[in-house]
């Protein structure tokens, strides 16, 4: 396991950084928080650029900072690369020379230079002055430069926030590819949940210099649904259904039940207290966790376990890997107490309500489908009209176009 152990304090004008946390950096770990929450200061402490930090930082059994032992490893000796929001390329050098700066100073020699240049598509730009590049290109060079340094750890501080959507997508895919190919541990700081949702396996939420929440990506996002920090959404890992033919511009997808365990903690999935409406055709009379999961386990391709997404929304990267991260906005999901028929809405899933959170006129209803939570934002009025209750069987529905992804 790749572990970063932190016990860091740092006094700032608007907040005090106070972190005691062990980060598992096997996958990409995201740090989410609003500006001024201390994310950047935390990264600067880790790379050693912030010298006023106290406490201790241990990276893979190597002590980088220990105030008690008067130990402070200078940033140039940490082998931790840092990519900033502004690309921070050396303006007096060309693209090639910027890359060479990192290559000359790297300690190991495993990552082939040509491979990175090809991956980033920088070949035609190598001789250009960096000041002549566009924002997206500059950030690409900065990323390539950091990867070519072969850092033990790569810190990404809002690397995409200055970019447009198109460039954001490209660079996100690039970061993910680099992580998969070269296994560089990455700590990714951002105030954009979309970016993390796409690439991080774990994430932590920072507020006022402290970590408020940490865990597996989908879990944390779902827990944030009840804070005002993000737009309410369902976060999913999907696999492109193998033998299925794509028809009419739609692609069938299967969703993983990766977060089932933690979601069901504390939420009762009722087996008894279920009202089955007359005109709803259900396979079993007893609806609950076990029976629904049985369908899944039996490998039976039940209609309910499949999702349909616009093929045009699926990127090349997802097709290559047959897997993708998606999100569905809570406002795009509606509820039905009866199985809807003759609807243009292609995604209809049967599940049971496990939570209803009413906030003034708006309600967030959590529906467990095969153990996976889906979040629907409906009006409090509808909750009353439909007489929704925890444990009730409902059908959630959303358009194929409601399944969104950022990576292309």
């Amino acid at each position, binding site marked *: 396991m790749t572990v970063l152990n932190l016990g860091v304090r740092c006094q700032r004008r608007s907040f005090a950084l106070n972190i005691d946390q062990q980060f598992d950096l096997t996958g990409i770990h995201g740090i989410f928080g609003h500006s001024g929450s201390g994310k950047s200061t935390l990264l600067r402490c880790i790379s050693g*650029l912030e010298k006023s930090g106290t406490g201790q930082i241990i990276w893979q059994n190597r002590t980088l900072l220990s105030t008690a032992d008067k130990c402070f490893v200078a*940033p*140039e000796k940490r*082998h931790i690369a840092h990519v900033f929001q502004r690309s921070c390329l050396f*303006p007096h050098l060309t693209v090639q020379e910027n890359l060479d700066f990192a290559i000359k100073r790297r*300690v190991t020699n495993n990552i082939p230079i040509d491979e990175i240049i090809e991956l980033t598509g920088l070949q035609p730009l190598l001789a250009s002055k960096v*000041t*002549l590049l566009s924002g997206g290109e500059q950030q690409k060079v900065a990323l390539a*430069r950091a990867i070519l340094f072969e850092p033990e750890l790569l810190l990404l501080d809002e690397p995409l926030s200055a970019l447009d959507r198109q460039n954001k997508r490209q660079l996100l895919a690039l970061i993910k590819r680099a992580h998969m190919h070269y296994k560089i541990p990455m700590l990714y700081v951002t105030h954009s949940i979309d970016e993390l949702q796409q690439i991080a396996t774990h994430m932590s939420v920072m507020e006022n210099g402290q970590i408020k929440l940490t865990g597996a990506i989908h879990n944390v996002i779902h827990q944030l649904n009840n804070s005002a920090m993000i737009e309410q959404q369902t976060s999913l890992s999907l696999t492109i259904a193998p033998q299925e033919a794509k028809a009419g511009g739609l692609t069938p997808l299967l969703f993983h039940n990766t977060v089932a365990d933690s979601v069901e903690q504390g939420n009762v999935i009722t087996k008894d207290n279920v009202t089955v409406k007359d005109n709803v055709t259900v396979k079993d009379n007893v609806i609950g966790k076990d029976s629904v999961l049985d369908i899944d386990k039996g490998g039976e391709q039940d209609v309910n376990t499949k999702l349909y997404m616009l093929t045009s929304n699926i990127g090349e990267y997802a097709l290559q890997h047959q897997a993708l991260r998606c999100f569905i906005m809570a406002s795009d999901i509606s509820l039905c107490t009866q199985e809807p028929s003759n609807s243009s809405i292609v995604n209809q899933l049967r599940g049971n309500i496990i939570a209803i959170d009413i906030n003034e006129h708006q309600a967030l209803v959590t529906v467990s489908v095969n153990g996976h939570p889906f979040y629907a934002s409906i009006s409090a009025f509808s909750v009353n009209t439909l007489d929704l209750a925890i444990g009730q069987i409902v059908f959630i529905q959303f358009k194929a176009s409601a399944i969104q992804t950022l990576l292309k």
Partner: protein
Amino acid sequence: MESYWSQDILALVTTLKVALVSTLILLVIGTPLAWWLAKLQSRWRVLIEALIALPLVLPPTVLGFYLLIAFSPQHLPGQWWQSVTGQQLAFSFSAIVIGSVIYSLPFVVQPLQKAFEQLDHSLLDSGATLGAGPLDRFWHIILPLCKASFITAATLGFAHTVGEFGVVLMIGGNIPGETRVLSIALFDHVEAFDYARAHLLAFSLLIGSIAVLALVYLFNFSEQKQQGLSNQSRQMP
């Protein structure tokens, strides 16, 4: 007649020697001093800046007078110098170099300090996280980025030392080959009513100064033009 010529040539050589040595010392002292001042956030900064800028407003003869007293064997700096080198400090080549360094210090420190203040420090952070230590960062990031300011500082320091008169007159005396510099030679010619020679020296100094400044401005202009161009194209959609 011939010796007259060679005297002027000797003065020219002495002047260039003084200016070159002073400029080198100025860069070595001025660079860390300017860096330190650029980063200094204490309220003492204003005082130190004022001290360095003093030669800009102080009559050179005043500075020269105090230096002459300090350099004399009766006073501590002069005594110390004599005990270390075995030679008298006042009226020596070393004395006018020291005088010149103090006198020209603001011309070197000020442009460097301004450049260091405007330097994008995130570039240094970036360099550090790519494995570049402090000296590495100086040679490969700071120096190339502040090249124009270093050239300006060196040129101003050099030119100012060449044109220096009051301080040298006070502490250097007029020893040929040692402390007799061009400006003093010029003064001598005027005193001797040798206006022809004075004209020649004055005119060559004038042309030399214009040439040096023109070169510096030309260089800075082309740098700016380059940067301006790249700024423009960056703003293009």
